[in-house]
């Protein structure tokens, strides 16, 4: 793992930058709070303090700097606050608790995985159709591209509401939004992958008088594997985004999306940030699992580490 050092360096730099940003971002809130608690500040009214930037205010009143890291409802939470909140809601809370991020994570993850499976299946089917059928080749791709130009934020509520009105609720509507986002990279990647065999390899199959299905199973499909995995990795993170977006419009009661919404609406930034990080970690884990499967599969196929 030679890549670990550069990764950690970048993470450390981001954390440092984040931690430094906390001071100016929270300076005004902290000053107001400190004054209520009896601290003498300059300037001494909130209105007057508005004339100063957060940074200047903190420099004029160095005593508030440590306090910017401990606000209960900060404008920008500090890294350790988010870490504590994450630990609290992931490890400490019982899984059955409505505040457990494991519980909410599972709600989102199940929709993600179902949607990912649906999207991948649909994507592969469409790609096969595009490669083998001239009519589909001419007609499907423009629509697939158009489908991705519609903002999912506009589309998601409609899908939820329409499906809800015909009695489909819960997992499936979210999974459909996930599938809507994840089928696209799979179509694009698989079309390219299924077309990756060159003229010579296709001619070779003709000299064997191979049928179309043999050409597919023995040449096109194996040749497309590296492309498929690249697409799956994009698709799975798109799926997660889709599931979260699907949790927002109805004010869903569960899932990462619901937690982000709750944090926003009830002024609890820590809840939002913890959900955000949990979602990011989940996405990273999903991509990492796919990378592992990719490496194993391609190695077994003799195509080495790609």
């Amino acid at each position, binding site marked *: 793992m030679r890549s670990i050092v550069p990764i950690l360096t970048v993470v450390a730099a981001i954390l440092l930058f984040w931690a430094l940003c906390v001071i100016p971002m929270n300076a005004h809130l902290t000053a107001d709070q400190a004054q209520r608690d009896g601290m003498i500040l300059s300037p001494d009214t909130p209105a007057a303090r508005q004339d100063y930037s957060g940074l200047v205010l903190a420099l004029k009143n160095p005593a508030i700097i440590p306090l910017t890291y401990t606000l209960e409802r900060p404008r920008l939470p500090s890294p350790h606050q988010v870490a504590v909140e994450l630990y609290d809601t992931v490890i400490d809370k019982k899984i059955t608790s409505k505040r457990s991020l494991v519980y909410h994570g599972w709600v989102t993850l199940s929709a993600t995985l179902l949607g990912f499976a649906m999207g991948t299946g649909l994507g592969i089917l469409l790609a096969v159709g595009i490669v083998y059928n001239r009519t589909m080749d001419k007609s499907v791709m423009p629509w697939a591209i158009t489908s991705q130009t519609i903002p999912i934020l506009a589309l998601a509520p409609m899908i939820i509401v329409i499906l809800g009105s015909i009695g489909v609720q819960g997992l499936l509507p979210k999974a459909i939004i996930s599938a809507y986002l994840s089928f696209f990279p799979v179509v694009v990647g698989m079309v390219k992958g299924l077309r990756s065999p*060159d003229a*010579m*390899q296709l*001619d*070779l*199959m*003709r*000299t*064997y*008088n*191979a049928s179309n299905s*043999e050409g597919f199973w*023995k*040449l096109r499909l*194996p*040749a497309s*594997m590296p492309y498929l995995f690249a697409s799956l990795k994009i698709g799975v993170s798109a799926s997660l985004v889709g599931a979260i977006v699907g949790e927002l419009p109805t004010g869903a009661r569960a899932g990462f999306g619901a937690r982000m919404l709750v944090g926003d609406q009830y002024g609890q930034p820590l809840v939002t940030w913890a959900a955000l990080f949990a979602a990011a970690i989940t996405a990273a884990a999903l991509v990492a699992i796919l990378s592992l499967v990719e490496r194993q599969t391609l190695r077994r*196929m*003799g*195509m*080495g580490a790609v």
Partner: protein
Amino acid sequence: MAQPTIRATGLNLTFQTNDGPVHALKDVNLDVNKGDFVSFIGPSGCGKTTFLRCIAGLETPTGGEINVNGMTPDEARRARAYGYVFQAAGLYPWRTIGGNIRLPLEIMGFDKAEQADRVKCVLELVDLAGFEKKFPWQLSGGMQQRASIARALAFDADILLMDEPFGALDEIVRDHLNEQLLQLWARTEKTIAFVTHSIPEAVYLSTKIVVMSPRPGRISDVIDSPLPRERPLDIRDSPEFIEIAHRVRDGLRAGHVDG
């Protein structure tokens, strides 16, 4: 006399391109008898590869007639009458050498035991015994090309069509493979059609050399080689060899002048 294995009469092939029609083949007449080793030689654009592809049924002529084993090329292709070796080895990277050779056998429905026997047999034939479980990238270019020849031999078609199979290899490897190919031809008694643009290669290998010239692609000379079938590499220094090479070179030059 028996019917020739490959017979082309008045064969024409015109490609329609954006720059107008291109005469890839014009009035090509040729008989190839069973057990012949025929080389097609000529500059690029002379239609030698196109002619090979016509034999294989991969291109459809626009005029004239061509027969392979008494059938149309397409029927011959369906009957799996030939093995084709391309310019590049074109092994599937996700299959082992054995797996690559098994590919045509799987498609043609040989049973598992038969597949294993044949793979073993052709690997020995091309001197690659012991490499069955290796992946293509683990082999040198010359070995990959030998594996692709083994793949074409695996289903034991009577005809072997080879399109500049050694074109991308260095001369030392090429000499070695040429020698091996002759041995293989002697052992299997196949009819071989071989495209090349190397004069020594064509003269060394062939019982019949077909000299072609471009624009339009046509046959400018057919030379029946007087060399014996048994040919050590140093036959290339013999006067007979040099004389044939001269004639080939003259044929190529003549084609160039009026082309």
